[in-house]
């Protein structure tokens, strides 16, 4: 039997919204509206409701079977108890991709779980792929396709104006909103965002495989649980692209009676930590890292060693990041005499060892020379510049540095010790990868190096999926 691909979840040519009606507060109707942003779909959005009435200009039918056209994707948003029957109709129609946004399944106890397995049986028989239940489905910034329910008319305008290369899997709409809004003052933006809910079929591993092959550069995930750990590990180690995961629920999920001391200490969080290290998944420490870290990968080469040089005009920040680098397992590069020699010829520096202290009387050319000398030095793997933006030309020097990082294939993580509003303004106006705190900048270097080292490690390892539990 042919099993459908995931393509129709992201770029369907026709969609039926089952449960869209004109009653007040109808969520299906909001989906019809949001779908209309898509040029491609415009007059191929159909509403299915008992009265067969048109909804927001989308032609209405009493059943998906009555629609006189092929349907690539069916979206279901009706009471849970009606869903298994509707899924059978969809199968009969020949549609092979379904998003079930309705709640009331395995998350609500045994009856719900039974309905969910009823659905699974139908879809397996027909090679159908299902997202959900209990989810929002898909947002694709590239083609303005979005089936999130409850969105207002202009909710996604900003996202559509600037489609990006970071794709997300989220188990919560709230986290999605946080990410989308945060990108308004950042240099990266969303490619695709998927809410997978109860994951009765499509799960995070399927989506890693999908994002491996599309225009995604970085994958971000917010997960509340993991069902198929070994599949996730396998998908992650075969992916190659950076995968950033924030997982909630750090307490013991697999709390089954353990007889040995080992099993007693093996809580799910520690095991997940091990899985991340082994598969190269970057485990995030805060939800904010989901939107603050991707730019390190989209705008900078990877950090290939641990030796960092700090450039600052404030001794205080030099000390602060030296501590942070040490805690992150990175080191302050020891500059060679010849490098220091070159540095001292660039102008009136306060200090030519690491941290390099710029002093106040420094020109744009001196900035350029200092950055270039450091990027050329063998003993330096990456830069952590902390220039206070006290004159506009400082912004140009950061732009200049970005260019040079590409030339010399070494990264920099810049932090400007200015008020946050000013930093955000500079970042979004000039499209520069600036971090919002010293901690963020150091963390960016740390995960860049982690990704680099795990990519090198991956090919040596054994297969995980073939081994039973």
């Amino acid at each position, binding site marked *: 039997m042919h099993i459908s691909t995931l393509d129709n979840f992201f770029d369907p040519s026709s969609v039926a919204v089952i449960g869209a009606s004109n009653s007040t507060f109808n969520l299906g109707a909001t989906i019809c509206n949001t779908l209309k942003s898509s040029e491609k779909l415009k007059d191929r959005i159909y509403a299915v409701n008992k009265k067969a009435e048109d909804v927001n200009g989308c032609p209405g039918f009493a059943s998906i079977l009555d629609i006189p056209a092929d349907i690539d994707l069916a979206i279901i948003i009706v009471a849970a108890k009606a869903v298994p029957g509707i899924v059978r109709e969809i199968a009969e129609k020949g549609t092979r991709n379904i998003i079930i946004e309705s709640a009331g399944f395995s998350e609500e106890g045994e009856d719900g779980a039974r309905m969910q397995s009823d659905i699974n049986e139908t879809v397996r028989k027909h090679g159908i792929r299902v997202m959900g239940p209990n989810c929002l489905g898909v947002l694709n910034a590239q083609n303005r396709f979005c089936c999130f329910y409850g969105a207002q008319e202009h909710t996604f305008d900003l996202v559509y104006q600037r489609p990006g290369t970071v794709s997300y899997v989220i188990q919560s709409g709230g986290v999605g909103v946080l990410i989308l809004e945060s990108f308004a003052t950042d240099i990266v933006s969303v490619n695709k965002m998927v809410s997978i809910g109860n994951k009765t079929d499509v799960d995070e591993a399927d989506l890693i495989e999908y994002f491996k092959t599309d225009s995604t550069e970085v994958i971000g995930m917010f997960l509340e649980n993991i069902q198929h750990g070994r599949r996730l590990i396998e998908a992650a180690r075969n992916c190659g692209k950076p995968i950033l995961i924030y997982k909630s629920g750090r307490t013991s999920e697999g709390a*089954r009676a353990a*007889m040995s001391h*080992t099993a007693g200490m*093996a809580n799910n969080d520690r*095991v997940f930590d091990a*899985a991340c290290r082994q598969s190269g998944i970057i485990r995030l420490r805060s939800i904010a890292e989901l939107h603050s870290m991707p730019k390190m990968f989209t705008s900078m080469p990877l950090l290939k060693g641990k030796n960092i040089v700090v450039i600052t005009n404030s001794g205080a920040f030099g000390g602060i990041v030296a501590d942070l680098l040490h805690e992150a397992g990175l080191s302050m590069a020891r500059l060679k005499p010849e490098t220091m020699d070159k540095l001292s010829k660039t102008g009136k520096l306060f200090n030519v060892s690491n941290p390099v202290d710029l002093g106040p009387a420094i020109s744009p050319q001196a900035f350029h020379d200092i950055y270039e000398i450091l990027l050329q030095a063998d003993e330096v793997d990456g830069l952590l510049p902390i220039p206070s933006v006290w004159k506009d030309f400082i912004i140009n020097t950061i732009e200049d540095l970005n260019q040079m990082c590409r030339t010399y294939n070494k990264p920099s993580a810049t932090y400007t010790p200015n008020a946050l509003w000013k930093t955000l303004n500079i970042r979004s106006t000039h499209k520069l990868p600036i971090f919002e705190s010293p901690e963020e900048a150091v963390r960016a270097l740390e995960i860049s190096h982690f990704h680099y080292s795990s990519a090198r490690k991956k090919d040596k390892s054994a297969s995980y999926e073939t081994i039973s*539990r």
Partner: protein
Amino acid sequence: MKQILDSAIKKGQKALSEYESKKIIQSAGIEITREELAHSPEEAVSLAENFGYPVVLKGCSDILTHKTEYGMVKLNIQNEEETLKAYQEISSSGMKLDGVLVQEMIKGNREFVVGLSRDPQFGPCVMFGIGGIYTEIMKDVTFRIAPLTEEDAEEMLEEIRMKELLDEFRGSPAVDRRALIKALVAIGDLGASCDQIAEIDINPMIICGNRPVVVDALVILDQKS
């Protein structure tokens, strides 16, 4: 190895005795204490003399998972007289035993723990960390999903907080890391290849000179397989 597991499962055992557990671990290429089951006082004495004093005597049975609490472990036995006394005490406890385990007494002040557990989502996992009686209080342990590469095992040694214990320590040489790494990989392979084993506890693994030696171990069986 297969024989021990099959027969134990057939008999409905939930776990293997210490003697059986260590046979499994030994067959995976990991060094264990020299030991043998004695079924009479004379046999115990002859085994003790063969290993050389001091020795340890332990009551051995698959249902006896907390031997120390039942007074079934007699440490540091120095001569024939003490051997006979210990044998007498253990065998008169009224518990049904496979025999009395006579083993060489390993001296070393560094104790580690190695274990195998099964996570509902991630499957077999190997644990390594600081062993001994404070293991669960210190929780200085780290995990990897099986099977492990040697590189995975090497990283585990670097991840525990008290990793300096693996270096030269109070006149003892640095631990044979190759042997430890091989042991961790072997435990992972056991978990990955053998569904009948649900959990493994090796505690302590004592460093004798520079060699890690399994002193006590417990294998929990999965009766469903």
